């Protein structure tokens, strides 16, 4: 049996070399990778395109076999079927059968987990609701847009309420709203103690949700550690205040000069494009503007919240409700309940102004740093301006390579 503290996934000096038809070596996609996924952590696999993230994931899932080295997943080989029951996987592209509709797709994968009918049905409905596709559940997946397919892909990865969730670029192809949702979802699942491996080439994805990141480049592990450690930049202070007069700014400069420091940059804070877009969509949803695409319900499927599934009389009730005219009923439902517009961190702002009045803005910011549960909010991030030197240099390398 596997110890609770034992890593879920371990790779030992794993190398993967792709060969062509004549067995000539073509690409070394992964080289001597030593990686651990510990229980209850959200691990980000970061790296430019072609750095071996997907290859690593496929080896963990037994879809590829390592050329050298070996892998243990839940203490077993990746090809062992029994471990698959605890894994959820979202491939880099949503490889879904185009001839099935969303409902059938989820139902099929539920069947492969031997889920009983009632449970399957409940989960499918909850997941469809969660990814906002209830209204288009009976359209063929082949007709879906890429983002909608991505949502179904995510839903199928969650059908078994997995302990280990492996997401290969989960936000690729998603609109900012979907991206936000996926990040929220990952955070919520992470808080529930799920282990998540997330690959991405988007820094913001990883930065927002991962506790630990592993940075790959050219198939090698370049850096691995806590996000805060990798990103925090010591020695800078950011002040966000209501519009200040030039005189006030001069005073601040003077204060800074009094302490022997200089002010490096002064500018009007701008709303992030992401949060603006989120607001617009939220407004539209409040006005119940119909969409043929995906909608944000903002809800996590109850079984994923760890709440027990419906039982006995409840099930009957729900089934009765559902049989009140199947698809028609589903279509007639009002647009999913509206999620309040994402707050622009008013709380923080007022705190800040309060603090400014008391002349102690700095303390608030430090408090803020000390509470890492919040950095995911799409507010003008008070988090320290990131030191992305490692990452940026890697990205630049990559571009230079490809140029």
């Amino acid at each position: 049996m596997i110890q609770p503290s034992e890593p879920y996934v371990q790779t030992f000096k794993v190398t993967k070399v792709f060969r062509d038809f004549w067995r000539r070596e073509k690409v070394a996609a992964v080289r001597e990778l030593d990686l651990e996924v510990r229980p209850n952590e959200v691990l980000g696999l970061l790296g430019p395109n072609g750095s071996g993230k997907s290859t690593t994931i496929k080896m963990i899932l037994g879809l590829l076999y390592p050329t050298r080295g070996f892998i243990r997943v839940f203490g077993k080989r990746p090809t062992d079927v029994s471990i698959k029951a605890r894994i959820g996987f979202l491939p880099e592209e949503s490889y879904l059968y185009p001839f099935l509709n969303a409902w059938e797709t989820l139902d099929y994968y539920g069947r492969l987990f031997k889920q009983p009918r009632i449970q399957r049905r409940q989960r499918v409905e909850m997941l469809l609701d969660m990814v906002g596709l209830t209204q288009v559940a009976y359209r063929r997946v082949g007709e879906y847009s890429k983002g909608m397919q991505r949502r179904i892909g995510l839903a199928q990865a969650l059908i078994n309420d997995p302990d280990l969730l492996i997401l290969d670029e989960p936000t690729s192809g998603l609109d900012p709203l979907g991206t936000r949702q996926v990040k929220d979802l990952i955070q919520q699942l992470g808080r529930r103690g799920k282990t998540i491996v997330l690959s991405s080439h988007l820094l913001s994805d990883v930065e927002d949700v991962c506790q630990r990141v592993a940075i790959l480049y050219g198939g090698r592990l370049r850096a691995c550690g806590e996000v805060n450690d990798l990103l925090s930049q010591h020695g800078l202070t950011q002040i966000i205040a209501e519009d200040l007069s030039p005189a006030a700014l001069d005073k601040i400069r003077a204060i800074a000069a009094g302490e022997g420091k200089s002010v490096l940059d002064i500018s009007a804070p701008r709303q992030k494009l992401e949060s603006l877009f989120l607001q617009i969509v939220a407004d539209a949803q409040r006005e119940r503007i119909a969409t043929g695409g995906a909608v944000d319900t903002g809800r996590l499927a109850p079984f994923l919240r760890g709440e027990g599934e419906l039982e006995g009389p409840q099930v009957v009730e729900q089934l009765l409700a559902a049989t009140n005219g199947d698809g028609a009923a589903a279509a007639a439902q009002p647009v999913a309940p509206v999620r309040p517009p994402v707050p622009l961190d008013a709380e923080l702002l007022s705190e800040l102004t309060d603090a400014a009045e008391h002349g102690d803005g700095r303390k608030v910011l430090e408090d803020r740093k000390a509470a890492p549960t919040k950095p995911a909010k799409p507010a003008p991030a008070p988090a320290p301006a990131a030191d992305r030197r490692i990452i940026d240099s890697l990205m630049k390398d990559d571009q230079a390579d490809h140029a």
Partner: protein
Amino acid sequence: MRRIWAVTRQTFIEILRMRRTTLFIFILAAVVLGVPQLPRLFNKDVKPQTAALSAGKPGAVQAPQAAQRHHVQTFLVYSVGLAGIILSLLTILAGCKIICEEQARRYVFTPLTKPVPRWQYVIGRWAGLVLFQMLMIAAVGLAVYGTAQVLRLNVKDRAERLQLDNQVFAGRYRSAPNSLDEDLPKVAAKIMQQREQNERLKDLSPEQIAASWDNARLLAREALENVAPFGRLGWRFTELPKPLNDNALVEFHFTAGTGKAAAGTGLKGIFLFSRDPNSEDAGAYFRSDATFLTDRDSSILLPAHMVGSDGRLFVEFLNENPGDPAATFDTTLMFPPEELYIIYPVAPFEPNFLRLLLMMLILQVFLASTTLLAGTWLSFPVATLMCLTIYAIGAMQRFLVEATAIRYKSGFWVYLGHYIYGGLQHIMPNFELIDTSTVLMDSLVVPWTRLAVAGVAFVGVWTVLALTVAAFVFTKRELASVIVE
């Protein structure tokens, strides 16, 4: 088991939703419903009466003539045969598609990262394909049976209907006489005995003796196949099964030739049918004063009771053709043994038709496993080509045996073909076991034993083997490293 079923179900839905399936179903419908119209289009002057003149009257010799019953038979042969070909093509195309395409397009990643063992996945795929073909065959069977019944009810003439029920809507048993096999060596031995008595063999070398034996066999064969004017010739049928019922008509078929007369010259003779005189139900005789044409298949109808309870029937022929006064041809008649047989119903039509459909299913089960075997490691076009080749070789087995036989003058290519095909033939099961057209052509009965043998060869051996290999390959296969085309 539930996982296999999930894959089976999924496969079934997948095939059902393929566009090519719809196309094939349309073609199938056109074939089954269109074939019965063809005789009407191309052979307008057939009337039920043509055949009815002599039909159903025991003893009369029937000339081969186009009749309504032949149309029904043609319909059965063609619709079932064509449906078999169409379904086979569908199995191959759909089978290769479901297994190759999902690997090429990587759909397969998602199900295979679920807790379903890959061998179960392969079995599920195969079972889905088989399930689909089962339903298709059931549909084809119903459609063909229904259409055939409509055609049957359209035959209003009583005699023609009787013939139809006897010849087409029945499972018939066909038997050749066993005289030659048993008698030829005896007669040849007798000839050799005489030669020995004449002491002519003593001075001969072993080769010459062998040649003498060959010659004796030839003479014996002549003696057993030929009948001189006013001479007699007999045949023995043994181990005959009981006719279906008392109303069943037993057909005795023969073809007679003469040395010189043109085909179609009129002849006469007496056929005498009898049961084994030594058996307890001896004594029944049946005589037919026959007139018939040279080199044409002719038949005589006998009542069912002529097949004795001991399963024996004796036939004797008296050549009534005197030497031709004009001496234009020799009236010694020759009866080639391969064209001499009796045939009569021993089983009702419906269960026999059902067994015929099972024969079709056996082929589809075989093809489904073959496509999976090819599809697990080949790309779609290559796998399709390979399966089509195997199917074609199987379907043309008899033709290929002849075409690649090594003859007197053989070149390199003949040898090459012979050995390649010979090798394949040893690997592949015998397709003649499940050839529906030879069965339907004569409305032959399909015994369960034949089905069992076919089942063992096609399913028990080949399918199990193919699926095992396919499952093994698929399990070992590094799916994500497939670099397509």
